[in-house]
């Protein structure tokens, strides 16, 4: 065991896999000598050499496209897209190619790649360093989407993603790289080292894809969240003294429907929280699923607390962010709401 923040955990996950499997290669803008703009790949080029961890041209299309070809050869590439906001030029290669390879070739060719990319706001990154585009990818058949919320999970899920034989989009909430941000942006952030989830095994372990984690048990309402919002939701729940069950989804596709269903059947209420824009966000899918499967157990409308349907504004980012006030209001409404 070692104490790691999320970046260190990711770095350790990459290192572990590069050591175990010669076919694991890392590529992306500034990931080589420099070790990545968030330092996630620091030291890997030095340790494994330039053909295992290298910089690329600034072409997201080329990065994912080349990775598809590497998969066809037999490698297991882990490309980095510097910010999720910049994944769009690589979208066709990800959607039409990586995600479709196994299907269209009836299993002859596969794309066991893990595309890593930082998501989310709260760092005054403006509209092009703050986006959470995960919902789009959850609509793509053949693609898995994973978002960790702790160092322990980050490493375990990353290893599971790299070992997975299908393409995985691994989105890292950059706001919690250093510590579990709880939404109170005026307060100093406590580093991960102060939390148990920073205890990370040195070597190989996995956190399975498709399995959610109950972060906090409770009976009053089920809160579904992932990434940064797990911490914010948990903090608000505690602040409001509500006996909520907080579930960290960890994998969006395939989502852990069993855990969700069991919880909502128990609580009869459900709040969904995400940072992404509201309309057609992943919260919509969660809401639809819960409603379809737990309709007769629901005692109040399922609520969504989300980012607004605007670009992420630079100066008003805390007005945009679905923080404690927005979540708190919704929570109170749900638990107060009595079925008429």
């Amino acid at each position, binding site marked *: 065991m070692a104490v790691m923040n999320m970046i260190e955990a990711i770095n350790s996950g990459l290192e572990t896999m590069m050591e175990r499997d010669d076919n694991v290669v890392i590529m992306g803008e500034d990931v080589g000598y420099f070790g990545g703009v968030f330092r996630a790949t620091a030291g890997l080029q030095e340790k494994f050499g330039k053909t295992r961890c290298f910089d690329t041209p600034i072409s997201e299309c080329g990065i994912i496209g080349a990775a598809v*070809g590497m998969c066809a050869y037999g490698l297991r590439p882990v490309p980095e897209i510097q910010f999720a906001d910049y994944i769009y030029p690589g979208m066709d290669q990800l959607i039409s190619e990586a995600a479709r390879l196994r299907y269209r070739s009836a299993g002859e060719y596969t794309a066991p790649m893990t595309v890593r990319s930082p998501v989310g706001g709260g760092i005054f990154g403006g509209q092009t360093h703050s986006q959470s585009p995960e919902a789009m990818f959850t609509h793509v058949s053949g693609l898995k989407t994973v978002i960790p919320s702790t160092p322990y999970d980050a490493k375990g899920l990353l290893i599971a993603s790299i070992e997975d034989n299908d393409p995985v989009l691994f989105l890292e909430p950059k706001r919690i790289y250093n510590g579990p941000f709880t939404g109170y942006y005026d307060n100093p952030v406590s580093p991960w080292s102060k939390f148990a989830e920073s205890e990370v095994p040195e070597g190989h372990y996995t956190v399975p894809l498709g399995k959610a984690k109950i972060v906090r048990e409770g009976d009053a309402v089920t809160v579904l969240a992932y990434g940064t919002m797990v911490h914010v939701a948990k903090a608000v729940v505690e602040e409001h003294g509500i006996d909520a069950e907080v579930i960290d989804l960890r994998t969006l596709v395939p989502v852990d429907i069993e855990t969700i269903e069991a919880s909502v059947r128990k609580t009869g209420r459900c709040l969904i929280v995400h940072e992404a824009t509201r309309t057609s966000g992943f919260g919509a899918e969660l809401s639809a699923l819960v409603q379809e499967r737990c309709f007769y157990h629901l005692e109040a409308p399922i609520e969504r607390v989300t980012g607004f349907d605007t670009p992420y504004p630079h100066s008003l980012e805390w007005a945009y962010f679905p923080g404690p006030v927005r979540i708190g209001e919704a929570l109170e409404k749900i638990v107060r709401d009595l079925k008429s």
Partner: protein
Amino acid sequence: MADEKPKSNLPPLSLHVPEPNFRPGDTVDYSGLEIPAAGAQARPDINTKPKDMRDMVDDMIRVLDDDHAAVGPWDPKLDDETLLKMLRTMVQVRTFDDRLHRQQRQGKTSFYMKCTGEEATSVAAAMALHADDMCFPSYRQQGILFVRGYPLTEMVNQIFSNKADKLKGRQLPIMYSSRELNFFTVSGNLTTQYPQAVGWAMASASKGDSRIAAVWCGEGSTAEGDFHAAMTFAAVYNAPVIMNIVNNQWAISSFSGFAGAERATFAARGAGYGIAALRVDGNDPLAVYAATRWAAERARTNQGPTLIEHFTYRAEAHSTSDDPTAYRSAQEREEWPLGDPINRLNKHLIQRGVWSDEQQEALDAECLEAVKEAVKEAAKNGILGHGLHQPFETMFQDVFEEMPWHLKEQAAQANKEREIKWPS
């Protein structure tokens, strides 16, 4: 500002929108087309720096001369056996195309695409590669599969999307895949295979392997960003890859001018990245072979990528969904000054004294028989839309390696619907 002239004193600009030389009904005149004599092109040493061979992008490598002799430094000096195999393979391809096109017209499948007139660009190219070199085709390189011996019946099964189709009826006809033959799964999205081929080549190089990659796209497809990504990656990492542009003059209804042909050859793109680039008479199978061989030797000796423009002509429609008489002059094909690759090789072999009209006739008949036989065999496994398709469950397989819960639920739903529609 140094000089701020009022706008009104300046001459008006105008937008140039390219227009092909000939439209339906027009008389075709190819005299403006520069076609150098066969044998006239120097063959640079394979160690030549791209910059030192930049002028080749405006030339055209040609081997077969007007008397059907193989001439000049690019003559690959192939033995009879190889040449006969080349001819036979091209005839197989053309026969298959004709026959399968007809099947589509008869309603046995939804779609077909021929490569008529362009057979050399895949057949001769693939023959110049090793069987374990990896090919990333577009939808018009069926020739590679013929070179590598893919069974005709399998091809027809795919085209009929039937219960024996190895791709489980999922793909549009002719979107083949064969891992065994190092033939990458064909995509409907243009040019995506370009950076993929470069990635494969990078992987091969980084593993110290000796296999190289080859990739094909149409001249129209070079406009996609993927083309640029591939060129950039190939240049940066010196990837062992041969990038073929099949310039067949047309992209559906748009002539090559809409991909930039009015200003530069497609081979010139390569020079822009410092990549070795050749321009080849794509209807001259020996030239295609020789250029591919040159590029392959270069790649195999760690000298990196080569771009090859194959100057050819799409003799028929874009696909079965298209009628070219609506946008181009029928004469274009008839008068195409570079002839037809099969004819030219036939004439060369006859001139060489190893082939005759009778033998050609026999070959044509034999190839037709083989295709008919394959069609008959495949039809036993079903034709599109007539019941003998893959089981419904296959629709949910291979989305992921393991089927997640939501696909299992959906598969159950699909089976339930089948039961409702066709109670067993």
